[in-house]
């Protein structure tokens, strides 16, 4: 199960990589939306994309619209992870096809909870 982490910050990609690796994902990374599309077009299709909004070259919103325009990629779960927290932008991203929206800063638990709601990770069984 692969997660594609799309963020122009290496530090943020590193933080997200540690979180989703702990949740059982292998990871791919991209520094902008175009680089992420290059992965998909090369046949590297992840289960999940974690997508920043503000990036150079191609922003996260454009990436979502491009993914949703291709029926072959409809099974990819798209989750925005961004500082953009205006209500209008959240609605716009969800309307474009994002499944979930996480606002930075976040905790590892917040990411895990969202992925659990999406059915991508199992809830830990209490000891």
């Amino acid at each position, binding site marked *: 199960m692969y997660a594609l982490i799309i963020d122009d910050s290496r530090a943020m990609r590193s933080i997200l990589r540690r979180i989703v690796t702990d949740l059982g994902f292998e990871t791919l990374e991209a520094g902008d939306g175009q680089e992420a599309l290059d992965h998909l077009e090369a046949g590297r299709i992840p289960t999940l994309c974690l997508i920043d909004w503000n990036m150079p070259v191609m922003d996260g919103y454009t990436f979502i619209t491009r993914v949703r325009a291709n029926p072959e990629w409809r099974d990819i779960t798209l989750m925005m992870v961004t*500082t953009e927290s205006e209500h209008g932008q959240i609605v716009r991203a969800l309307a474009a096809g994002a499944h979930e929206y996480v606002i930075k800063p976040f905790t590892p638990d917040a990411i895990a909870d969202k992925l659990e709601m999406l059915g991508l990770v199992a809830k830990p069984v209490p000891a």
Partner: protein
Amino acid sequence: MSTVVEPSLTDVQMVVEEVWTSFLGAEDPLLPMAPGTLEVGWSAAVTVSGEWQGAVSVELPRSMAEEITRRMLDLDDEVEEVGDDDVADAVGELVNMIGGNVKSLMPGPSALSLPVVAAGRVARASDVVEACRLDASWAGAPLLVSVHVRHPEMG
């Protein structure tokens, strides 16, 4: 005369503390302090344009910027060195998160710029005035977070 909305110091402090705690851990809390001398090693700024117009900047000593980078990249203190590219990236992401959350407290819609990062002090537009400054210390060193707003009368 138009009214310019400014964030409160309490709001800015809450935002900065949340970013710090989320990404740098709660062991070393961010503590408010009186304004003092800060030898700026790195700084970063984002601008907000739209219904609310302003800029949010962070200024840090070099050692703090490097420690933040180590923590965000999860680098081993003993073994791995941090490069300037990594420091610029980490400090830029820090101001991105602070700026994005300050933006969310202000009237919208508005757009957040990509961060501008400098070794030293970033240049600031001449048509903005300081609306809020948070002097704080982290792990024994000072830092400054400031919010500047653009007044229509100055444009």
